[in-house]
């Protein structure tokens, strides 16, 4: 059995393929955080006074908070004064109006990642709002979306063009004081995406954003706000890769979703930030707050995530099921290899009547990765007829990794139906041998087994994204066999 372990270890130890740094002249603040820094960011983005105040209040609250340490993760203390809170590619300071105006080097970066923007626009019919180190540099398909009344733009632009919407909804799902990282984000967020779909409109294309961390030591604080008005429907895709770095990089995003009556939001993420090297040095720290509010009756919010990157993942995309008959879903694949630590899961808060939620979580641990599922299903007193189904499966590859499950049920209404299933399995030597005996290489065998394990989640992803996600998983698991 030792040879199997050896083999698997070799297989999963493979260098990050997307480690390169683009040299673009940047316009950065020195490291450090203070009210001045926040005022600088706000001024730099020509923000209205209410938003500056909003940020400052978040900052003051943050100062009173302590970094949470309840998650099953370990890392060296983060020095928040040693982080750069603002950096923007200079070439986009004036805001390019089309792809032609985009820095060619930047486009080349996306090429390297296999994201040919210009092709993608045409072929896949995807509007891309690219976030490159905090500033949006290209937004496409805007006119087409605008014709239907859909607003899809960078967060900064939304602040300028649609301040009433931003003011109404910002912080309404994730309050500034919600948690340490959300408070920090509220104080210093630099950009992100904004989307509003008007009543009765079905967004005709998948909305897509690529996030990418590029600047050394620059924390990235994205802010995303998506509002689906009554009877509307939108699918949003988010995908990430990041270049190789020696210093840990902090990432603390906040995503807020709001679904009104009969509205439907599908939010899919493929996250592949640099996980660090084999010793755990240099990976991204990913502390994200994602939450959706099903405000309206019959509304639905569905989270699907494929998390393969980051040294640390701390992330619990959640649903607040306020509206009667509203539906929350969470489909997750989390892979921890090398020394990656993932503590991820969801919260489903049932408030309205006949609310339903589904949780499907697939955790994969390889090498010395540690994977924890942490979930809460809360059914409040008035939530008559609420239902939840949770399934948490863990797959172990090799014998140095770990899988942990922390489910939490809080049921205050006796009419609730709550089911929880959990399993832990190991990629067996017998499974690998079976596949190989039929002619599949070791690599293909592992991919086949892992893909089978993840199938229920893959089929929730939009088609092209599912293919990409599958590829990512394969790349993340690839090793130096033979």
């Amino acid at each position: 059995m030792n040879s199997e372990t050896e083999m698997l270890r070799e297989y999963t130890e493979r260098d990050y393929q997307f480690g390169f740094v683009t040299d673009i002249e940047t316009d950065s603040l020195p490291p450090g955080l203070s009210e001045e820094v926040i005022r600088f960011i706000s001024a730099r983005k020509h923000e209205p006074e209410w938003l500056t105040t909003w940020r400052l209040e978040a900052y003051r609250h943050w100062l009173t908070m302590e970094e949470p340490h309840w998650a099953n993760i370990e890392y060296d203390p983060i020095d928040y004064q040693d982080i750069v809170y603002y950096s923007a590619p200079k070439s986009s300071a004036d805001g390019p109006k089309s792809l032609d105006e985009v820095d060619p080097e930047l486009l080349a970066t996306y090429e390297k990642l296999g994201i040919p923007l210009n092709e993608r626009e045409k072929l896949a019919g995807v509007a891309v709002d690219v976030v490159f180190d905090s500033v949006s540099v290209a937004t496409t398909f805007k006119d087409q979306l605008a014709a239907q009344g859909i607003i899809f733009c960078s967060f900064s632009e939304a602040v300028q063009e649609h301040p009433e919407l931003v003011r109404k909804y910002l912080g309404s799902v994730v309050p500034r004081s919600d948690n340490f990282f959300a408070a920090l984000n509220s104080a210093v967020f630099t950009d992100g995406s904004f989307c509003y779909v008007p009543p009765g409109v079905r967004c005709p294309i998948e909305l897509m954003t690529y996030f990418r961390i590029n600047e050394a030591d620059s924390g990235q604080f994205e802010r995303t706000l998506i509002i689906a008005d009554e009877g509307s429907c939108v699918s949003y895709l988010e995908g990430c890769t990041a270049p190789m770095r020696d210093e840990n990089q902090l990432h603390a995003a906040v995503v807020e979703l709001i679904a009104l009556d009969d509205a439907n939001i599908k939010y899919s993420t493929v996250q592949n930030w640099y996980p660090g090297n084999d010793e755990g040095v240099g990976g991204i720290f990913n502390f994200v707050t994602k939450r959706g509010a099903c405000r309206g009756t019959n509304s639905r919010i569905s989270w699907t995530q494929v998390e393969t990157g980051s040294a640390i993942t701390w992330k619990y995309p959640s649903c607040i099921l306020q509206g009667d008959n509203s539906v929350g879903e969470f489909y997750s694949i989390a892979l921890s290899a090398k020394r990656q630590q993932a503590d991820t899961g969801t919260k489903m808060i049932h408030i309205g009547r006949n609310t339903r939620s589904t949780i499907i979580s697939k955790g994969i641990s390889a090498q010395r990765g540690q994977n924890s599922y942490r979930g809460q299903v809360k059914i409040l007193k008035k939530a008559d007829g609420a239902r939840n189904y949770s399934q948490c499966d863990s797959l172990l590859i090799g014998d140095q990794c770990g899988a942990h499950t922390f489910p939490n049920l809080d049921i205050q209404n006796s009419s609730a139906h709550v089911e929880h299933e959990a399993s832990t399995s190991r990629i067996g030597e017998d499974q690998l041998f079976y596949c190989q005996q039929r002619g599949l290489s070791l690599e293909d065998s592992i991919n086949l087994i892992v893909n089978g394990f993840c199938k229920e989640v893959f089929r929730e992803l939009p088609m092209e994204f599912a293919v990409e996600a599958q590829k990512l998983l394969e790349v993340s698991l690839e090793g130096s066999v033979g």
Partner: protein
Amino acid sequence: MLEIRGLEAGVKGKTILKGIDLVVNAGEVHAIMGPNGSGKSTLAQVIAGREQFVVSAGSVKYDGRDLLELAPDERACAGIFMAFQYPVEIPGVSNSYFLRSALNAQRRARGEQELDAFEFLAFIQDRMALLNLQDELLNRPVNDGFSGGEKKRNEIFQMAVLEPRLAVLDETDSGLDIDALRVVASGINSLRRDDNATIVVTHYQRLLNYVVPDFVHILVDGRIVRSGDRQLALDLEEQGYDRIAARAA
């Protein structure tokens, strides 16, 4: 085709095979019989290349090549197939996707064109009928929730699709009722050709009523103690391993 000389092999320091000599030519069917723990399954798995079994002496040549040098998937691509005694479940992977991936891996290795999903479906139709398999079985996850009989038929179905040159059937008859045994046996028989060979590893004579062997070898305590023709299996059935083994000793 296969030439085994003085093969010794074991697992975790324990020697199980203690000097096996066996020659299998194209067109032949060999039955390996023996009591529990005699090393039958070990022999099958050493031929297929299972890593946990360590070869400590002897040689195995396949078409003149050193078989022991090859990884399990290379052996498969060279035409060696093992029907598992306990077929392995792979949740979430459909049977047809699995088999098509395997077939295409082998076709790639032979420099042949890969089959797309439609070509593959056409290719397997008559083989499905041969093993009396329902279409729905193709879409179910590999061996997951299959009955014992379905798993064994599925093994022979895979063999029918992969068309190996050397098939090693490890206790394929165990756990089969008489009807399923007939279906499986007729499947095996219909795949017999002049240019391929089969090694049937079995505990009971029963299967050999249907799959008639050219040679029968009795394996006891890691050694082939007697070899003969079909009659040997019948004698064995009548007299039991102890007497046959005793006479050999």
